[in-house]
Every structure is written in structure tokens, then in C-alpha cells.
């Protein structure tokens, strides 16, 4: 075997190893979008989305967590707990996406995403006349 062939083999093995490692990490880190019901039924990391129930948010000083409720289109309500910082547009959000695992009655979120009202909705109504 010449040196070139050795390197080719080493390279291929490294690439296969890396791809396998990456694919494994990818699969184990996937968080599918699910309904509240499905989120309650599994212990895997998932993501759920819903409207913030206004006034439900509270910073629990003892546990140092942010708690709030979100409601989906069917009226189902889910309690979310979050250890991080409250996102900037939290109260204005039309929708809150929480990513985490359901534990002990609430979804323990690792990450929150807030979606703000589109600048393009209701634009023409807002345009006042001079």
C-alpha cells in the first residue's frame, strides 16, 4: 500500500466517523413541533407554540424561574417555566414558542422564541389621514 492510499483510507474513515457522530447528535437534538397534548405525553424535548395568556407571567423569585401560560388555537392552556431571561418583545408577542421537556405539570423550556406582530398587518388601517 502506498502512502496515498493510506491517507485516502484514513480520510474516508474520518469522514464516515464524523458524519455518524454528527448524525447521532443531530437526531438526539431534534425538537419536533407538537401539540400540547403530545408534549405532555412524552419526556423528549419538543417545541410548542401558543398565544401568551396576558397577565399570567410571573417571575418566581424563590425558584428563579419565569412562569407563564400559553394557549393554543383549541383553547388548551400549557404552563411554561423558563430559567433564562425574559425575551425583549415578550408582552407584545403574538405567539410564543417554547422548546423544552414536559416535567411535573409544566413545560420546562430551554429556549423561548417570541414572534411579534408583523409590521405589514393592518398597515392600511393604521395609516391616518392628514
Amino acid at each position, binding site marked *: 500500500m502506498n502512502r496515498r492510499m493510506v491517507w485516502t483510507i484514513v480520510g474516508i474513515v474520518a469522514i464516515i466517523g464524523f458524519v455518524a457522530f454528527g448524525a447521532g447528535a443531530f437526531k438526539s437534538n*431534534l425538537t419536533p413541533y407538537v401539540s400540547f397534548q403530545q408534549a405532555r405525553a412524552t419526556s423528549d424535548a419538543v417545541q410548542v407554540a401558543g398565544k401568551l395568556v396576558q397577565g399570567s407571567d410571573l417571575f418566581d423569585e424563590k425558584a428563579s424561574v419565569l412562569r407563564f401560560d400559553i394557549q393554543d388555537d383549541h383553547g388548551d392552556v400549557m404552563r411554561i417555566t423558563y430559567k433564562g*431571561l425574559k425575551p425583549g418583545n415578550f408582552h407584545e408577542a403574538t405567539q410564543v414558542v417554547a422548546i423544552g421537556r414536559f416535567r411535573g405539570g409544566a413545560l420546562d423550556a430551554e429556549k423561548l422564541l417570541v414572534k411579534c406582530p408583523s409590521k405589514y398587518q393592518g398597515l392600511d388601517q393604521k395609516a391616518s389621514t*392628514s
Partner: protein
Amino acid sequence: MFLPGAIALWAAFLSLVASTFFYFRSVRGHQEARAWARQAYGLATTAILIAAGVLVYLIVTHDFRIHYVFSYSDLSLPTRYLVATLWAGQEGSFLLWLVWGMLVGLPLIRYAQHYEDRTMVVYNLAQISLLLILLRQSPFRFISDLTAGQVPFDGQGLNPLLQNPWMTIHPPIMFLGYAATAVPFAFAVAALWGRRYDEWAKASLPWALVTVVTLGCAILLGGYWAYVTLGWGGYWGWDPVENASLVPWIASAALVHGMILQRARGRFRKLNFSLAILAYVLVVYGTFLTRSGVLADFSVHSFVDLGITGWLVGNLAGAMVLGFGALLWRWREIPTEPGDEPFFSRTVFFVVAIAALLGTAATVLVGTSAPLITRLATKTSQVGPSFYNRVILPIGIVLATLLGTVPFLQWKGTSKDFRKRLLLAGGLAIAAGVVSLVAGAHGILYVMFLLASLFAFFSNLLKTWDEVRQRRFRAAGGYLAHVGLGLMLAGIIISSAYDRSEKVTLALNQSRQVMGYTLTFKGVDKPTPTAREAMLIEVKDKNGSTYVARPRMFRNEKTNQMVANPDVHVQLTHDVYVSPIEFDPGRLPEHGDTLDIGKGQTGKIGPLEITFDGFEMAGKHSETGKVTIGARLTVKGRGQTQTVIPAMHAAGPGEFTAVPVEILGFKGATVALNGVNANTGHVRLSVTGFGGGGVAKSAVLHQGNALTYKSVTLTFDDFDLSDFDPEANKINIGAVLKITGGQKPGEITPRFHGGEGGPRYEDAEIPGLPGVKVRTGKMDPNEKTVEIQVLDPDAPADQGEPMRFSVDVTVKPMIGLLWSGLVVLLAGGIMAVIRRGDEFSTAIAAQSGSSA
């Protein structure tokens, strides 16, 4: 459509098409067409600059008929943010990209030499693809459905998070980087087209370096922006928008190394063609991901879908077909030369480094595209930050190790001081590693990454020193850049793997211990009514040195959006990062007692005698234009006499806020001016803090419900509306309560008087319980509910609740390495750009000299 702007865009489009056409004619042998092509390009550049100028003019002059101006700016924006509005929205940022694209084309034409015709055909196509988006989604369109003469008063304003000095520099640098990626792409396709497979790499190396320097700078500026002002707690979140710029940056870094390799060894042509095409395709792909709305559910700041998804997909397909099509077309013709280098050679290390960089890029790419990939197979899913961290950490260790070894390698083997130098660098890295272990570094992979980064740092530092000593300053640029990179990698791993963070809620003036710091919330600083509130937190460390952290939390009046800015206290070894979570303004004490007195009259409350001496209008503390009324009072009690001036400030039309003033000598006692009767000249004062009169019990009662206090039961019977006539401005409501169980059964009616002169309570004493009074609170005649409070002189006075501020305190060790490393990296990168640019011009000069 605003005509001047639209005309400029169309003129640019037609000129670019003409330029492309004439360059194509020139390729076909009609050399005289080249001059026209250049003129047309110049015209297109001018037109784009005019278009950008027109848009800035429209923004600065507040022409709110224009949809873009209306959506992203308003009258209150200062000029610098008005100019920044040019790139605040989708359309404007494409225009900025195009401005850079056209400007980059000018030196490109000058220096492209014999590649010019073909390169410019491809380059123009890339510009046209951007311009098409702007013609489809024009920044100059009017708001739809406005009839003639209708102009909005004011715009919707710029997102408050973007109203930040970083907004004025981060996007322009970013888009310069994006624009520059089109150059190696155009060169690569032109080289394939014209079958000149070698010199293009030299010609486009400076441009690839420009991309690496500018994109890298922009990415980290964006990170620094997020870190110091957005309060997201970090500089990097693996968000799709961040990733969309990171992937092309890594690909461009791989391209730079590939080109240097090709230049030195005359090999790896196919690799570089692939990389140059890939880097540009990745930019276009990133644009598609972040601008089409496909990831709207997965990012904190993806743009909204504007209906240009089809165009973005079209651009992507176009770039891929053009680039990879050209590559496949010539694939078999591109010469390849087998090499046979030992493992310890710069050649092999470069190849491995390029592979590792591509592995990193692929990881980020796959992770960012996860929603698209999984949509095909199963449920739409995304991956979290841990995916990136887990996969990239081992590659990072490999890359940093290569980075540390390569300075002392030659292209075909090791340099003679290889062992000595590496031992020295390795020794220094291990020594520094031991120091960090003592300081608390742990975790096998983290420590390995740290050691490798330190090794890279020391080794490149030694090499830079060697070069400088031998007066080869120009060659030092590349090594210096890698010194910075080593520092940055070390800073990244230390600050993210070993940061400590704790959340704490601070009540006003109370100290709390957090991670060895003593934090005391000192209140809210708002020096002028228009200033943004800053929360003052005194932070004292173990050694007793103190500073005041000023994190901010305020409501943007325009959008009513809460904006939080952290406070970053930079120290040599660590940053203390205080980020706001929640602010609770607290509650003032319930009004213990009220006094209604005229000028010169005296009233008694508890041990105090209060005399109203007269009004104090707009004193020296008030702002011009703000109405402030003060009442000068003489307060006597316990042998002391003092003058206090509580005031009311106009908070809005017909709205006043009362600011309570402390009465000295009586703990917790305050007096506030709650109302002024203009007719009688009376003032209403509320005094809090005396031993009694506190709320002993309170409840909301429905009709028929009862509340029991001591032996007495109070049953809510009905409202007394006998003197209630809002039209005559008589808002007097009583709540009839039946008394049972006490010594004297009967009926009492505490009342609330609204209307003229402001709200006033008329308390009713409970018969049989001397001094105990009942007061009405909230009343709801529809629901038939009333809130009642039992006030007992024996109950402790209500102290109110202090304001409280919850913060997240994070100590980020050695994060300064990241930013200082960035500066070193940029300095080295700029040196490298100059060196490679000069090398190319020298080569050109030599060529034209020999051919002449």
C-alpha cells in the same frame, strides 16, 4: 411608486443588462465592446448610488407616503438612525448590498486583467439577481390604498432594539462581506469558461480575504452588540440569522487557505473552484433561509415573508446551476497533479484544516436547515444550541492543534527548528493550562480545547516574533491573524464553559450576596422626564471595591415595548454582567389618613399638627413646561417643627402624580399632596406611617356576603345611590352594611365621593368598636360587589411594598480575550489583504512588462 427612485433602479437594471451584453460581445472577440461595457457598468453604479441617495432623502425628509419610510422610521428618530433606516428593512438592506456590490465591481474591473470580460459577465449577473428582487419588491412603493392627499402623520418607527450605535456600523460591514463573496465566484466561473485555471486564484485571493475580514468583523460586532446591549446573556445563540453569515465566513476561510495552497503548490485547482462557488452559493442560500420566512418559527429575528420567496429560490437555483454547472462542464479538463508530501508538511495540514473547516460549515448548515430537512422526512423540527456545541467542540480541538503546528511546517516537510519551537509553544501552553486548571478549569474536552487554543496562540506568537525579527513584516500578517484566533478560541471556551450565573431579586436598599458580590438596589435614576430609566445597583466585591451597575429597563413609548439593556462591568480577568429580568415598582403605603385644609388652617393627624402655609408653584426642581404644584406645610410634632413641601406633577392631560415626602423624625411617615380645590383654595393631604389606622382586614363582598371582624359581622346589603347622578357630577356611592353579632346591631354606610374635587372617602365607624372604621374600596354596581377595608387604630400601619428589581448576574471569565483576539485577528487579516493585493499587482506588472 416614487418615480425618481424607481427610474434609478430601472436605469441601473438596463445599464447592467447592457454591460453584461457588451462584455459578452467582447468575450466573443468584439473587443471594442469592452469600453461600452465599462461605461454601462459605471452608469449602473451611479444609478444605484442615486437610488440609495433618494431613499435616504425620503427617509430623512419623512415622506411617509412611502411604505418603507412609513414602516421603519418616524419623526422622533435622530438623524444617525434615520440614515441607518436605509438598512433596517428587507428592501433597504438589499439596496445596501447592491451598493457595495457595485462599488466592489469598480476595482474588480481595474484589476481583473484578461479575466475581465468573462468575470464581469458573471459578476453582473450576480448583481442583476439582487436588483431583480428590488424591482419586484421596490423600496420606493407607496402605501397601498392611499387616496390622493392622504399622508400618514408619522411612521411606525424603528424597532427600539435597533436604535443603537452598533446599528449604524454592523450591517454595512456585513453587506460588504456578502458583496465581496461574489468576486471569487465570478472569477471561478470565468476561469472555467475561459479555460485559464490558475491565475484566477491569485487574482481573487485578496477579495476572499476581504470577505473573511469583513464578515468576521461583522459577525463579532453583531455578537458584541448582542452582548453589551441586548441582554440576551451572550454574544452567540446559534440563531439562523447568525448562522447564515457564519457558514459563508467559514467557507471563505477555507477558500483563502485553498488559494494559498494552490499558489504555493500549483495544485488543488478543483478544490478551489468548488470552494469559491460554494462560498457564494452559501451566501445566497443563507439569504433564502433568512429572508423567505421559511424559518420564521425558528428564529428570534428572521425577517417576515415579503412574497419574494420564489425569487430567492430562483437566485439560489441560478447561482448553483451557473457555478456547479460550469465546474462539471470543465471537470475532466482541469489539470490535476498528484503530490506526495509527508504527513508533517504544511500541504497536508492545510488540506486537513480545510476539511475541518468544511466539516464545521456543514454542521452549522445542517443544523440551521434542520426545519427544512425534517419537513421532508417527519415532523418539522429544529436542533438546539447543544447540537452545535457538541459536534463543533471536537473539530475545534483538531483545528486549534493544526493551527498551533502549522507555523513551523514547510510546504514539503518540517522546518529545522520545528521540534524546538513546538516544544517551547507546547510548554507555554501547558504552563498556562496549569494556571487555568488551578483557577478552576475542568471537563476533559473543554480543557483539551483550551490547551489546543493556547498552543495555537503561543506557537503563532513565536512565529510572528521570528518574522518580525527577520524584518519580514509583511509575512507576519497571516501569523498575527492566527495569534488573534488562538486568543479568541481560548476566550470563547473559558467564558462560555466556565461562566457562573445566578438570578436574584433585590428590594430597594436591601443587600443581597450573589457569588461573592454584595448587591444593593439603590433605586431608579431618571434625571429628566425624557431620559431612559436606569436601575442603580451598587456592586461590592470581596475586596470591598464598589461600582454602580446601571442596567436599564424602560418602555419604548412608540411601540410600548419593554427594552432591557444589561450592564457590563469589564475587568481584566472577567466581566460582571448584570441583566434585568423584571422590575416591580412596588406599592406606596395605603393612605393612612387624609386632611382637607385651607390656607392658614391646621389639622391634626396622630401626634402631628399640620398647617398649610401656601402654594409653591413651579419651583426650581421642575422642568420647564411641566406643571408642578407644591404645598408648603409646617409640621409640628414631638417637639419638632419642620417645613415640608409635597408636590403634584402633571403626568398627562388632567393627570397628576403625587410624590410623597418623608416627615423627618417619624419612621416611615410621609405626607403627600393628593388634591387641590381651585375654588376653595383647599388642599387635600394624605399622611401615612402612624402607629395605627392600618388595614386590619379587607374583602370583596357580593351582595349578601359577610365579613367578620372581632365579634362583629358586616353583611353587604346594597348600594346607596341616593346621591348618585353622574350628569350633575355627583358621584357619591355608599355601601350599606348590616351589623350583627356585636353589642349594637344596626346599619352603617361608608361612602365614596367622586366628581368635583377628586376622590374622597367617608369612613363609617363600627358601633361598639371605638375607633374602628370601615372604608369602601373598588365598587362594581353591575356585579354588585364592593371591596371593604376595616381600619383599626391598633393594626400596624401599612408600609407599602418597596420596589424590587430582579436581575441575572453572570460572571464571564476571560471574555476580554475574545474581543482583544478579534482586534489582533483583524489587524493580521488587513495586513494579509494588503500583502496579497500587492503580490497580485506585482505579478500583473511583471506580466505586462514581459509581454510589452
